[in-house]
Every structure is written in C-alpha cells, then in structure tokens.
C-alpha cells in the first residue's frame, strides 16, 4: 500500500483551485469532471511533483457531518492539515503580502516553528518548519 493522496474539504472547488495554485504555489495535476458539476481535482507540490496529491474535495456541500466537522475545526482554530516549508517567516511575509489571513503568526514551539492561516475555503492550514 502507498500513501498517494490526502484530501482537503472545500466549499468551492474553483475558488480553492485559485487559492492553492495562485497563492500557495501548488500545481494542478488532475482535473476531471464528475457528476453534478463536481470535479476530481488534485494538486502537487512544485518541488515534489511525483509526491502525494492533494485532493480538493467538495464533501462539505454533499455530506452535512463533514460541514459540521469543518466548521467546528475552524471555530476552534484547529488546522485541517499542515504543510512542511523551508522557512516559515519567509512564507508568512510572502502570503501576508498576498492578503492571506493568519490566525497564528510565526511561533516557535520546541523543535518547530509554525504559523496558521485561513485558506478561504473553510479550513485553517498550518505551515511548519523543523528547526
């Protein structure tokens, strides 16, 4: 078995595609139509294009418990998932200039530095740098 895919619930796939590619810098890998206007939409990291794909999944629009869970995480400030970065401070500066809103500014905790931002699609996302 291999881990090749992780999914992120999003309310609007097109909006999410724009945010994750134009602001975060991911690259679109697969985009195929499903029923009802939904898409199988995956992204990869530019520096790891054969790595795991990130599925932008419209689950909250179709399965109420997913929406409830996503809202609860958002309200409590919990990240839905996290991405590794080389330099949290540099990404914080870059994304702030692109009007990305951070709920946690770069913070050191033990052996990591991290920050948390709003992906505008219903999730908090954490970026982490191993010190």
């Amino acid at each position: 078995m291999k881990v090749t895919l992780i999914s992120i619930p999003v309310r609007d796939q097109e909006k999410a595609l724009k945010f994750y590619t134009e602001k975060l810098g991911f690259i679109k890998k697969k985009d195929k139509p499903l029923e009802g206007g939904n898409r199988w939409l995956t992204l990869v990291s530019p520096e790891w294009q054969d790595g795991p794909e990130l599925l932008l999944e419209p689950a909250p629009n179709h399965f109420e418990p997913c929406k409830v869970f996503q809202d609860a995480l958002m309200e409590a400030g919990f990240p839905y998932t996290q991405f590794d970065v080389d330099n949290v401070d540099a990404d914080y500066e870059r994304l702030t200039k692109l009007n990305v809103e951070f709920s946690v500014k770069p913070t050191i905790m033990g052996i990591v530095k991290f920050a948390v931002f709003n992906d505008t699609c219903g999730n908090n996302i954490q970026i982490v740098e191993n010190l």
Partner: protein
Amino acid sequence: MTFYEKELNRINNVIYSNKEQIETVIGVKSYIDNNYHNDLNLDVLSRFCFVSKYHLLRLFKKYYGLTPRQYLIDKRIEKSKQLLTKGTSITETCFAVGFESLGSFSTLFKSKTGMSPALFKKEQLSRSKLD
C-alpha cells in the same frame, strides 16, 4: 486566543519545558544538516554537543522521533535524489552525500525510495525530457 492555541500552550509547557535539551537537539540536527557529507557518527555528534552519546541518542529520539543515524540517512537520501535529478552520476552522488560504498548507498536508496538509484535517475531524466 483560540482553543487550538490554548491547547498548544498547555502541551508546550508539558513537553517542551526543558529549553537546554531543545537547544542541544536543534544544534545536533543543524550540525547533521551542514555535515551530512562527512563521516558522522554518534561519537562525533556527542563531542560536538558535550553530551554523552547514549543520552544524546535518547534526547534526539525524544524530540525528533527518530535516531540521529536515521535522520542522517534520510538527509543523505534526500540530497542524493536532488543530485541524481540534476544528472550527477551515481558514483559521484554516493560519495558526495557521505556514503562510503556504492553497495550500501544502493541498498539504502532502494529501501527508502522503492527503486534503485539507476532507475530513479532514468525516470527523472525521462520526465524532464517529457516536460
């Protein structure tokens, strides 16, 4: 402050209260990051941070979740993938990242990536031609 931040503060006080230990392991990780291509072992790292080698082994594992040796191997494999992708020869890559024999390099590379260095290099080159 969100519930998430409160939880992090609570956990931080429990597991990251010993600043001296954290400084030690971060220093050792940084030393490995900068010297992975040299002949590194627990004796060298222990002398570098003035901590007995078995205490260092326990500390590193406690904070990073893996031993210094495992971290060093992962670092070397990561660097070797970068060199092979750039077209560096397998022999040159092997010694440039600190392995002492082609045999141990190939065996470790295959166990970590699922393919031999030769196959990995071939796939990367054919991928770059397709792009």
